[in-house]
């Protein structure tokens, strides 16, 4: 149990997907202008990450490994993720239209979020067990949402600031992200040595 908790903390803050592993940077910069939309994106991504973590673990262990098709991993995983995202969108639209209205627009973007595929590939390379994969995915998703929401908050605050014209927008966002990444490096102390 403490092991799983550590895995969760590790993937959420210490080895944050966005700020330490450089995964999911496109939405991190693209959808971080307002706190509300960034939270929506974060929730949707976390959901898809956990689902796809489960799906790719099952595919890998019950299809690719028995058939010795590990070299097809990339193509099968990305197709599984794309299908899953489509499926989630369909289900949401039918049964929870309110939720779909809130999160629907982010779903297509998630397929090409490298955090999702990256999570699946990393879980395989680290040979995580099923439970570990789920915890890893959950931690990764929450870490992603955290980074996104913090960034959005900072950017909302920065809107009124006097920033040199050339640095407005993505440039200052990247530098802010660098400073955030430094702060997140400080979390490495909470893991036991």
């Amino acid at each position, binding site marked *: 149990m403490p092991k799983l908790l550590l*895995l969760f903390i590790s993937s959420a803050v210490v080895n944050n997907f966005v700020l330490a592993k450089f995964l999911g940077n496109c939405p991190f910069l693209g959808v971080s202008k307002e706190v509300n939309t960034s939270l929506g994106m974060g929730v949707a991504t976390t959901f898809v990450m956990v689902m796809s973590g489960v799906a790719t673990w099952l595919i890998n262990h019950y299809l690719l490994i028995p058939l010795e098709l590990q*070299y097809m991993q990339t193509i099968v995983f990305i197709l599984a993720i794309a299908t899953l995202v489509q499926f989630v969108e369909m289900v949401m639209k039918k049964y929870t239209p309110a939720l779909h209205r809130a999160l629907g627009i982010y779903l297509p973007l998630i397929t090409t979020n490298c955090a999702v595929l990256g999570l699946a590939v990393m879980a395989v390379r680290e040979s995580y067990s099923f439970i570990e994969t789920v915890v890893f995915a959950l931690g990764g998703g929450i870490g992603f949402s955290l980074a996104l929401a913090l960034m959005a908050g900072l950017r909302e605050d920065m809107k009124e600031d006097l920033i040199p014209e050339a640095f407005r927008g993505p440039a200052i966002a990247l530098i802010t992200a660098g400073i955030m990444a430094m702060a997140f*490096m400080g979390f490495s102390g*909470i893991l*036991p*040595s």
Partner: protein
Amino acid sequence: MKKSNLLNIVLVLTIISLVSAAVLTLANDKFSPIIKARENDKLRIVAQKLLPEGAQITKVANYSDLASLVAEARKAAGLSPDWHWNPDAAPVEAAVPAEEEKVELDFSGFTFEESEDEEEVELDLSGFTFEENDEAEEIGTEEETVFTEDSEDLDTVDFSEETFSFGEEEEAVDFGDMFGDAFDFTGGEEEAPAEAPTEPAQEEVAPAFEVYQALENGKLAGVAVVAKAKGYHGDIVIMISFDGTLEKVVGMDVVQQTETAGLGSLITEEKFTKQFAGKPTGNPFETGKDIQGVAGATISSKGVAAALQNALKNLEQFLIDGTIKEGA
């Protein structure tokens, strides 16, 4: 584009998938033998680098052949035919003159500072038993004798914060087991999360132990040993080579590692690996004693140390009965 019916969609998707699967299967058939062959060949190439040039290098299959070759080489050098690794021997720095000794202990290169509540008489005693007795480690632990090292100051080395006690000896040896699981939550204090970790290519099955011998005119010119231990991210596989008498280290190289890029991965750099050349094998091979760790990457450095210890332990056992002790 015109609107297509369902059949068309399914057909096109199926064809694309099938073609792609066929192409990938072909590609895999072409590349995977090369990948496998390289994995097998990698060790031999490293062995060639670490063993004397021009010698005939072969992988050792039969332990008794190697044992008799070693015995021969040692006799020729006027040594006892049986070789044993003595981890309790005093650490010897390769090219560093012995520092002044405050206490009469056979730790050239180290100075001792008694811990505050300890009397010098006791210290002497502990030092004495340490030389005589294998269980001296326990005494060392009780007394917590602290000694700091000040022998070398390479720019990669940062000893300023490190103190070592006898009690740590066991930890260093068992290090691989302590962090048995492949999680990377070790060492918060030294390795930053940082940088995309270079992940292992695939489930590479690196051997826990392998021996290569180099023959020159029928005589043993060198022996290279493969060993592994856990690092910060995964296994560290090293190869260490000795001269024919097994008295001296000729070279060391890291064969495979997945440590943090730019930090733990510095164990592969020559700055770190060259320190082993010329060291006598009668060394404990512990970081902070006779190994200069990479600054900021204590766990990776300790992983290398543990692998070196495994190499020596395994080689000793292998020469006796062809089995190995660690990582079997």
